[in-house]
């Protein structure tokens, strides 16, 4: 059985200058929820639009369910449901009319009423799109993708700009689609979204995959599962950082502004040693927290940058 989505050595150069995607490989199995994670400008949207057949790659191959865009455009269009970043649907059409319009393009669409019910748009069926809230609009965008009864759902930053409740509603919709055997490829720059929703992830930066695996695998690859963050009076010179690295159970040290972060395997052995060191050097502890390592830490570890930095 072929992979749901596969691409090899994908490259995209805009105007012969800007290299948005630089040799990207992915293999996504049917039934998976796969996330492309990366900061703005990492090449996520370019990648997903090439996979969707909306952009021509400069080089490389794409196969979707064992078919290529060159030979099976019409079939692939029937099998794919797509929600783009920031599509503005016609404001003067009602929710029902919009979904019916998109349904009319497919040979065997789902019933619009059923899709509206599933996406909690039933109450708004006759409201104009212009009157919907951000969350409702985003659900409608997903509804126009789901009404074609797709096998694969592509979602480009589906929850960007939504309030927490709307985000959770959308996650539930995606999970429902996965439960009936659908495959999902989504891009996001929200860590928690990727951690909760995705079976596997690829972290993308500068047009390349810099890490791939399940969220747990990625966090484990970071070494420690915990992060200890602290700040001391007198600042953090190179010496002090060296001492911190030598503390028991520390895998890596990062230092940002006044805060020093240690990724550690066992906080209960590292923290007493850290406190001892602070006392012996006659420093004052200004700040101390400890938490579970997250994908954000993985990303910072891999790239030296935060995901949502501009």
């Amino acid at each position, binding site marked *: 059985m*072929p992979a749901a989505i596969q691409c090899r050595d994908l490259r995209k150069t805009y105007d012969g200058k800007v290299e948005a995607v630089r040799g990207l490989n992915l293999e996504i199995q049917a039934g998976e929820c796969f996330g492309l994670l990366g900061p703005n400008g990492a090449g996520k949207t370019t990648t997903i639009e090439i996979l969707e057949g909306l952009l021509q790659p400069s080089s490389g191959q794409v196969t979707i369910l064992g078919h290529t865009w060159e030979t099976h455009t019409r079939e692939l269009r029937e099998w794919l449901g797509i929600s783009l970043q920031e599509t503005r649907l016609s404001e003067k059409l009602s929710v029902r009319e919009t979904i019916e*319009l998109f349904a009319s393009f497919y040979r065997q669409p789902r019933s619009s009423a059923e899709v509206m019910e599933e996406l909690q748009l039933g109450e708004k069926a006759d409201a104009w799109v212009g009157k919907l809230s951000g969350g409702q609009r985003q659900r409608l965008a997903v509804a126009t993708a789901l009404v074609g009864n797709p096998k694969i759902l592509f979602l480009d930053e589906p929850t960007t700009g939504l309030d927490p409740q709307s985000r959770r509603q959308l996650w539930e919709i995606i999970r429902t689609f996965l439960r009936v055997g659908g495959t999902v490829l989504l891009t996001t720059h929200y860590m928690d979204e990727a951690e909760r929703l995705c079976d596997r992830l690829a972290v993308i930066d500068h047009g390349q995959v810099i890490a791939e695996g399940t969220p747990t695998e990625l966090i484990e690859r970071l070494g420690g599962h915990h992060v200890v963050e602290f700040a001391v009076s007198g600042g953090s010179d190179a010496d002090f950082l060296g001492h911190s690295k030598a503390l028991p159970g520390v895998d890596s040290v990062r230092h940002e502004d006044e805060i020093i972060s240690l990724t550690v395997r066992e906080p209960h052995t590292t923290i007493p040693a850290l406190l001892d060191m602070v006392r012996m050097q006659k420093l004052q502890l200004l700040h101390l927290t400890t938490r579970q390592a997250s994908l954000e830490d993985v990303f910072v570890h891999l790239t030296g940058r935060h995901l949502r930095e501009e």
Partner: protein
Amino acid sequence: MAIAEQTRATRLTPPAVPPRLNGRWSGFAHLLLARMRELVREPELIFWIFGFPLLLALGLGIAFRNKPVETTSIVIVSNPGAQEIADMIQRSPQGPSIRAQVLDRTQALQAFHFGKYDLVVEPDGRGGVRYIYDPSRSETLLSRAEVDDALQSGAGRENPVPASSAVSTEPGSRYIDFLIPGLLGMTLMNSGMWGVGFAVVDMRQRKLLKRFVATPMRKSDFLLALAGSRLVLMLIEIALLLGLGMLAFHLRVLGSLWNILLLGTLGSVAFGGFGLLTACRARKVETVSGLINLAMMPMWIFSGVFFSYEHFPARILPYIKALPLTALNDALRTTILQGASLSSQAGRILVLVLWGGISFGLALRWFRWT
């Protein structure tokens, strides 16, 4: 088929409701319906497409309506013989269109200077008269000629050349008759260019075009639906403008309705294609608005909407006649007002077909969906 089996395997539970099947034209029908709904729900658009040309026709039709026969007002200075002069004018053939008053000299000159009278007639008391007029006011010149004619023929002058005149106020030759087909052509141009050009770029800017091509929608269906909505509007535009002309201004439509509809269709398609060409690359509605105005400007001026293009120098007339709006206006005018056959308009029809065909072909070649 192997593909079908593989893909079925990815879906664990069959859909609860048996899937409905969409026919070949389902996409087209829904696109057309959506387009018409959007139009109807946009009040400003309704005004610009329908209200504006109707108001123009009404306004210009009333302003340039045929006025009642002109009369000229003159004043006769109350010298001896003034009453005889007045009587002689009244008896003359020109009498009904001349209104004469008798006043003393000061009053008469004052009123003349204020423009109340077109001419001062001063009897010299010996059967002769002196005309006082202002050569910079054309109506005083006309008045002098008319009054002089009246006096001379009243006194028994025989005209050496027999002459008679007829007044042309027949429907078919008035300004409103010239105007209505021109306005119809202009309306078809406006709504074709804006209705296609602007709509397409707006959808591109909203990434709706991209969203559409991400579905199995046939691109040809999308373009056909745009054309279809134009044709529906064209029918309404023709009905409204010709209806107004017939009801309010007694416009006489001599050509067959089918020929008018065919020309309207040709015009709509030509300007739709031209509109699509202006829209084929533009990413922003501001860009396409500029392009559309730029493309329409020469036709507003040269194509004989409000006045005949025959006033322009003969050297540029061939270029003017090659413009699509000129061809459409001329064809509509001769068909509506003179009932000309389509075959007699082959040249104009060819101009429309070429403009439509070439711009549509280029538009498709350069068109950017994403």
